[in-house]
């Protein structure tokens, strides 16, 4: 009798909690763990945004956003990152369909867009430093270069990761390990696009109003 009662209790509990020990397949918690890493990265960016918010008007009698920013260039850059996001999405769909060649081609296109983004950003930085508006000019420029540069550094490392993953897929195919890596990199890539929305809104658009 008591046996039956315990059974129904565990059954009821099992409705809300998993009580039985169960086997987790290898890498089952990777995407959640990676997401938690991205959230911690998000906090780091939030600190840099707060620094920019505080120092963004400390021009030290130097150039301000309206003297330095070219919204047309920023719009092109945003387009590059947005296009790379959708091509990465297509690479993921090709991967889930098991088409290795198409996956590699879409990843290649994504890499080209990512490198275009980096090229335009480096051109912008070089142009500003050439004008004498380097990171040491004012609090505003220090905060600007730190925030936008950190995002650019993330895109750089994302591109390196993309290249290594392309080599791995070309050599070993679309096995479960490479699928897991693709899922992580896709989260990283789309996350950087989300951060960029914050950058172009908070830094460029609000600076130009």
């Amino acid at each position: 009798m008591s046996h039956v009662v315990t059974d129904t209790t565990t059954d009821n509990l099992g409705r809300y909690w998993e009580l039985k020990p169960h086997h987790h397949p290898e890498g089952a918690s990777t995407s959640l763990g990676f997401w938690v890493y991205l959230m911690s990265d998000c906090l780091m960016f939030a600190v840099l945004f707060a620094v920019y918010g505080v120092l963004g008007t400390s021009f030290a009698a130097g150039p301000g956003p309206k003297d330095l920013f070219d919204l047309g260039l920023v719009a092109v850059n945003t387009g590059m990152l947005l296009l790379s996001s959708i091509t990465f999405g297509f690479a993921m769909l090709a991967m889930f369909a098991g088409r290795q060649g198409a996956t590699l081609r879409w990843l290649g296109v994504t890499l080209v867009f990512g490198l275009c983004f980096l090229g335009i950003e480096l051109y912008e930085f070089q142009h500003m430093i050439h004008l004498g508006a380097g990171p040491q000019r004012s609090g505003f420029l220090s905060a600007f270069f730190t925030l936008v540069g950190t995002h650019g550094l993330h895109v750089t490392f994302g591109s390196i990761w993309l290249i290594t993953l392309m080599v791995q897929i070309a050599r070993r195919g679309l096995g479960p390990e490479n699928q897991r890596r693709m899922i992580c990199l896709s989260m990283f890539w789309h996350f950087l696009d989300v951060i960029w929305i914050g950058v172009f809104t908070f830094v460029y658009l609000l600076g130009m109003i």
Partner: protein
Amino acid sequence: MSAEHAHTAHHQDHGHDHGSHAAYIKGFLLSVILTAIPFGLVMAGGFESRSLTAVTVMGFAVAQILVHMVYFLHMNGKQEEGWTMLSTIFTIVVVVILLAGSLWVMYHMNTNMMPQMDHELMQGFGS
């Protein structure tokens, strides 16, 4: 979350939604629209009131972040049995406290502690 639900979610790739071409294209088009409108608005000079322009631009940014989360990151309440959503909500709460707190405190620091800076700051705004 019911037991059946948790069970299927657990075994079917943790409730991962892989999306489809149509969903990606829809998300992309929405993002393009939500990017183009604020850029166009600011490039055209914005509204009469600067704060109205700022609020509008920020509203579009929030909408676009939501579009990215739904269509590109495939977020929903079921992913990883809700833990993805929970960690995201926690992060958003911390980010809001951090940003609002920093800006609020530093704004008052500037206005109360450095009166001689005010003049310079206003000139900076005007330029």
